């Protein structure tokens, strides 16, 4: 964990509103695991005040990647960075996906920008297990396949792939998608994760959820990011105990 000054190497537009940033970050690149994240100081003044959390999307040698959509002020500033710009980044933060176990199929379920952590996970798992990716987006402008393998797409308006949510797509194909050795790795909006939690329980499949919530610090000192434990009457912290949780571990 470090507060590293990373240097922008490229900034690519993947979709009208979705960007991929590559930046030199030797220390973070050497430590990070899939679905860990960084807390980014997007400007070099006090506006906006808080850092912004982003998953590390991919790693290549000394470089890390972030994928983001322009949302509000913070991501707008990020989208206007230029090559050579320095950015202060805290990372890697949190716990990534847990794949150091026996399984033979990684079923990736991503909604919207929830695809962000999966290029990196795909790279790490590609030679080890079968990978199937289901990704959902509002419409085709919100679909990003960068770095994924075996991708099926669902869009709310049907402008690309299956018409419906990614959960509908999963439900429709669950027989062929899930077997004994499958682990679901998922990331996306909370309503999607909630539905998936139910799906995993009903279908008795291991499911890891990469969760999101408002954060101030990103490393456990503000207690701003609680998620309720399902086993004890207490809160876990998304930034420190997560962002990845077993779907049985938390109440969303």
């Amino acid at each position, binding site marked *: *964990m470090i507060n590293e000054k990373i240097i922008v190497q490229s900034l690519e537009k993947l979709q009208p509103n979705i960007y991929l940033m590559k930046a030199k970050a030797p220390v973070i690149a050497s430590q990070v695991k899939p679905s860990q994240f960084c807390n980014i100081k997007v400007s070099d003044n*006090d506006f906006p*005040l808080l850092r912004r959390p982003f998953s590390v999307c991919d790693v290549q040698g000394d470089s890390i990647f972030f994928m983001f959509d322009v949302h509000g002020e913070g991501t707008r500033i990020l989208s206007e960075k230029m090559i050579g710009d320095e950015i202060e980044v805290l990372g890697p933060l949190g716990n990534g996906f847990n794949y150091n176990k026996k399984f033979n199929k990684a079923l990736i379920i991503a909604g919207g920008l929830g695809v962000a952590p999966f290029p990196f996970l795909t790279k790490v798992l590609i030679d080890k297990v079968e990978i199937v990716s289901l990704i959902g987006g509002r419409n085709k402008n919100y679909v990003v396949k960068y770095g994924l393998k075996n991708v099926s797409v669902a869009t709310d308006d049907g402008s690309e792939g299956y018409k419906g949510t990614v959960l509908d797509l999963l439900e429709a194909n669950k027989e062929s998608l899930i077997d004994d050795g499958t682990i679901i790795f998922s990331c996306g909006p909370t309503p999607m994760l909630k539905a998936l939690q139910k799906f995993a329980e009903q279908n008795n499949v291991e499911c890891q959820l990469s969760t999101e919530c*408002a954060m101030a*610090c990103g*490393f456990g000192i503000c207690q701003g*990011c*609680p998620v309720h434990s399902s086993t004890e009457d207490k*809160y876990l912290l998304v930034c420190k105990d997560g962002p990845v949780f077993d779907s049985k571990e938390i109440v969303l």
Partner: protein
Amino acid sequence: MSEIDLQVKLGNLTLKNPVLLASGTVGYGNEISQFTDLSKIGAIITKSVSLKPRKGNPPQRIVETASGMLNAIGLANVGLEVFVKEKIPFLKEIQSTIICNIAASSIEEYVECTKVLDHEDEIKGFEINVSCPNVKEGGLEFGNNLTAVGKITEKVRAVTNKPIIIKLSPNVARISEFAKVAKDEGADAVSAINTLVGTAFDIWTGKPKIYNVTGGLSGPAIKPVALAKVLEISRNVDIPIIGVGGIMNWKDAVEFMIAGATAIQIGTVNFINPQAGIEIIEGLKNYCKQKEITSLAEIIASYKLPS
């Protein structure tokens, strides 16, 4: 030029420098120690501890606002027992001065916590967070009630000889009256300020952005208010003041000391720059050099008001 003297005194407690980490913004020190050397910091004030553990509020607990943030953590903490058993050992290791912040819902609970912690050598002093609801009085805040603040100070004073700092609420008309009562009842210092009450709504759902409806506003947005409160106390009551509210850098720290603060605390900035404390200490040294003063104490309450 000789080394700059950054030492300051709060009652009988001498701090190696006036930069403190504010309660609730560094937990119990362990996480932030990965990013910064806590042994260099003047003192750490722990997250508010209460007699029993508290779960805290459901999400959403925080939201960003213009140059600030609202939080309603709900005083989530491990409780006195776990604090003593598990957190103090780590705090011991880091070789910083530890001040324990206490939150409670009754005067008896304040007293009970102080009594227990008085035995812990690592705890060098207490900061009493009076911005808590008084359960006996139907949830009204202690911090708004002069009599309650006086009573709490008196009763806590009776059970410890360690320095007591009363952390004042800014949500009152005349904060100096509260500082006065704290002083009269034996407090060694006051901290000013805790957060301002604020809220925010989602305009599409009509729901408050934080579950608790209202939260505490912190960050640069509140700095002018915090400075005015420090100045008001400094002009009216003779008690050491620890200034807190919106400090982001050494310049802000100097501004608070000029306004009357003997020491300062940093809160929100720790989330953004975990090394802010150390940078502020360095900045204070350089400021003294530029001003050609050898002791930082010279600037405390050095404000020059128009006559």
